[in-house]
């Protein structure tokens, strides 16, 4: 175990050193980011719904190199402690995990470590705000998300993937929940950060939005940012989320078309 920890810090150190020496230029004078995108451009989306037959709903989503798998079970009766039963609504149970092979260095990731517990909690909050839980009193909905490959914006990709999975499960939601991670560099907000940008000393902010009504389901930031910049950053995040919602909508429609054609025959 000790060995693993040590290696991890060494890796982190090396990355810092690398950064200091090269001093990554996150946004060039010509307005291009490290990977060739412009400030407001999202990464490439690739999504598939209904990837598993056994689960009630499932989806696979790639946003650039970040790849996530989301599976939904339920609504079903509450399992475990009976005290968790809510008489007016369904409870949502989220579990987030990362594959051992999801990062540059292979690493065992036990369940229930602090980072993933926190992420699970965030996901839970997000979906409690979006799913119409009052339709299913005394029941439970399980959402499991796994990151297969991590390249920045893990939270956002999980939310987007889970949204598709929930839709695939046929559970009614108020709206798509779309999430996006944005950062602030040289007075410019950058949309949909990749790993190099997240690690490059950018203050990043994750936002989950219900795009039609413009309601914010979750907003999370743990970096330093001047409050005057916050508004611009949130504005950029909302625009990016609306972009995401368009893509997701397309995916859902395409999936419906594909699914409905054979059954009509």
């Amino acid at each position, binding site marked *: 175990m000790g060995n693993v920890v040590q290696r991890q810090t060494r890796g982190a150190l090396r990355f810092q050193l690398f950064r200091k020496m090269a001093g990554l230029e996150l946004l060039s004078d010509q307005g291009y980011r490290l990977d060739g995108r412009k400030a407001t451009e999202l990464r490439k989306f690739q999504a598939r719904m209904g990837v598993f037959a056994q689960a009630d709903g499932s989806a696979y989503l790639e946003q650039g190199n970040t790849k996530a798998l989301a599976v939904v079970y339920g609504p079903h009766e509450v399992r475990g402690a009976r005290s968790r039963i809510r008489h007016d609504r369904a409870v949502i149970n989220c579990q987030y995990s990362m594959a051992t092979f999801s990062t540059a260095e292979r690493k065992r990731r036990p369940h229930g470590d602090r980072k993933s517990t926190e992420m699970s909690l965030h996901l839970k909050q997000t979906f409690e705000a979006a799913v119409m839980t009052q339709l299913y009193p005394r029941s439970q909905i399980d959402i499991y998300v796994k990151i297969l490959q991590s390249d920045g914006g893990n939270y956002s990709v999980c939310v987007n993937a889970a949204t598709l999975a929930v839709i695939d499960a046929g559970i009614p939601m108020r709206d798509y929940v779309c999430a996006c991670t944005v950062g602030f560099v040289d*007075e410019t907000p950058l949309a949909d950060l990749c790993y190099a940008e997240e690690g490059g000393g950018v203050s990043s902010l994750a936002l989950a939005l219900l795009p039609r009504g413009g309601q914010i389901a979750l907003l999370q930031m743990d970096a330093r940012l001047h409050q005057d910049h916050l508004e611009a950053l949130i504005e950029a995040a909302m625009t990016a989320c609306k972009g995401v919602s368009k893509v997701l909508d397309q995916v859902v429609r395409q999936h419906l078309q594909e699914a409905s054609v054979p059954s009509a025959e």
Partner: protein
Amino acid sequence: MLKSKTFVKKTRSGGVMKIVREHYLRDDIWCGSEVCTECKQESTALQRDPCLESNLCSYPHYVIPDTNVVLHQIDVLEDQVIRNVIILQTVLAEVRHRSAPIYKRLKDIVHEKEKNFYTFTNEHHRETFIEREPGESANDRNDRAIRVAAKWYSEHLKKSESDTGPLKVVLLTNDQGNKQKAEESGLLVYKCEEYIKSLIGNPELVDRLALSNDDKNDITSSKVLFPEHLPLSRIQAGLKNGTFLQGTFRASRDNYLEATVFVQGEGEESTEVLIQGLQNLNRSVYQDVVAVQLLPRDQWVAPSSVVLQDEGAAKDDNEEEGEEEKELRVSAAEAARKPTGRVVGIIKRNWRPFCGMLNASIIKGSTRHLFTPADRRIPRIRIETRQADALAGQRIMVAIDGWPKHSRYPNGHFVRSLGSAGDKETEQQVLLLEHDVPHQAFSQAVLSFLPTMPWEITPEVMVNREDLRSLTVCSVDPPGCTDIDDALHCRELDNGNLEVGVHIADVSHFIRPGNAMDKEAANRGTTVYLCGKRIDMVPELLSSNLCSLRSNVERLAFSCIWEINHEAEILKTRFTKSVIKSKASLTYAEAQMRIDDTTQTDDVTKNLRGLNKLAKILKKHRILKGALTLSSIEVRFHIDSETHDPIDLQTKELMETNSMVEEFMLLANISVAQKIFDEFPDCALLRKHPAPPPSNYDILLKAAKSKAVEIHTDSAKALADSLDVARVDGFPYFNTLLRILATRCMMQAVYFCSGMDSDFHHYGLASPIYTHFTSPIRRYADIIVHRLLAVAIAADKTYPDLMDKQKQSALSNNLNYRHKMSQYAQRASVAFHTQLFFKSRGILNEEGFVLFVRKNAIIVLIPKFGLEGTVFFDSKNKVVPKVVFDEEGPSLTVEQHTFHIFDRVMVTISLDASNIQHQKIRMSLIEPVVPGVSVSAPEIEPLAKKPRLDR
């Protein structure tokens, strides 16, 4: 519009990590040329008709330089002649990685509109991006990327119509392999030298070319003169296991065969290693970071006291240096031996362009010449030029290109001429360059952040700002001052107390954190005042106009307002951003006249009287607390308005109003320091003046004792008090001399970040805390303090660097360095003007006082000119008189006469112009008469003499 392909880049670092990155390739990156009809670009940088006439390429063309051409020939690229150049992203990234200063220069060029430089983002372009092939090195890949981009351009431009036939692109590279491959793929490619030499009508560009590797071989013989430098990997291994030491190379000023390497140790454990002999110096140049290896103890030597100049004609590389080196070793007394070592490798070169003069080669028509830098610590440099005749007698700049192991001198190239030696403009340039004062005109990038004229106060500006336009504010400054950064007001309140306000130009309103103008100002650190010239920290529009609190115009200010009672006790302090309208800009003398003239009763004068009264009380309080009043003589030149030659010298006079303004500035600085420290205990930028260690006072104590005067140095107050009572009958100048000596004992005041230090005390001002707030136009520290204060009163927002104590600390180091250098430059400028003055006045006889006594000389101060000079008793070509030095006195007995500190002497002053690069004032003794040493008073016109003796 956007097609994106996902590519995977693999980077292996340390053999463990595999970094996977996406890379989006675009088809919306335009070519930037005016002729192109295909690209949907909004603005173009490259001209339709690039006119650059060349023998090689008679057609219109654009130029693409490769990385090495940019790195080595940046001097050429900066020339106005070179235009319409395409800088590829590959090149830009490589330059950025290899050299930060060159990267900055390159970016400045790109920003300049007239240069028509265009950066083409080839690495993100769908058709010009290439992947590294297996077995291909990173450099080879980049070279290929440059070729592919050049190829793309030539294909792309073929399609577009032009009246003069299709535009072409020319690739410049010095790499033989690269050139060959480019030719194979049908590109127009030239070596940089070939191309520059072919340009019609610009022969002087050729001299600015840096020598490339293959040229060096024919300059020098093949004999190896120096040991090989070790590769960096071996140096690092050596440093780790302790066989080598890393340090900064400091060449000796007096002896070109000797140097020390300053090894920074942990804490106080810094050591110096002595290096002697050309072989051991091993091609190090002053300020390089080098690795040294200590020699065995029995080979240690003592630093020699011999003065050796590398003079005369260029030595052949194979000529023995033996004799001079032997001379060095003679004086190796056992006890005086110091750790000695030799340089085994260079870790980092710190070469900059050097100023100096050309020693034309004796062979007529030769193109290789030696260049002697003005700084004696820099070795002579061999350069190649065809214009030696034109450059003789001129101050020129030369950059070092390299120092191969078989060459006695480093090889360099001519950068530019500064003008003829001895000329005022030229000498000013030289001293600015030698003191590392950034003095180029502000770049386009910087100027783009200036407010647009006509500027006026808009309602947005008035947010968080108080309107103080109705107050009777006035400014008091030295005559001819155009950057007025402070103004004052004073008025009676209804409750009988006084309200006093100090209004400082709100520079931080115009200079926003992080932009190019801010970075430039942070780098410059301070405005440098030379005799008759000012090198601004911020562009003139700000310094002399928008930020200058001139009379009868509305200006933005940062105000510090106190409520003070008539005993000058502060009852309330408040800070606010404001708008003011100064009613009068006065000089010290004008203000003094108004105060003294009882018939004047206007508002401004009443104001001044109130301020003056308070200032006197404040000063009394301050002196009671133990603030020092020290003395140094400052001189002012009366400069001829047409020729700009100094025609008279005058020591600066101080008036009551000087101290009035000063008093309130001190008060404002202290109040602000307290406020920002309370608000930001970790990152306030403060200024401290450490108490000098007791040993510093030795000279002062000894000197005072010799006149039977007791000086107490236990505290600042004791020192101030004892200086006040120190008087000698019949010697009115004694007190001033003593204060001058006391000034020399002091430490330098420095900026620091409050989170990094615990000692805040300002010794000289006897204040527990101090900062600089009152001159943001000419000091960058004040801008930072303004920003901190603005955040503290919620008038402005903060930014990350402001709150980062490491960054603050790094910034204050730079400010301290710039401040020190600007003072040196200032002194050098005064010295130069003093020389000019004495050149025009011829030989003068003056009265002076002995300020210090040294082993072989006395240092004489001439109060009239504030001039200090050394009278040597053992000049080279004369018989050395019998000299006995007594350290206790201190006194120096020459033949029969004994010199003590404070002795009155007569000296004759003349200009020693024997060394044209280092002209200096020479003093020789007239009175007292010491046979064999003193000279008889040379004749001078008696008219001038009389008033001088009256003083």
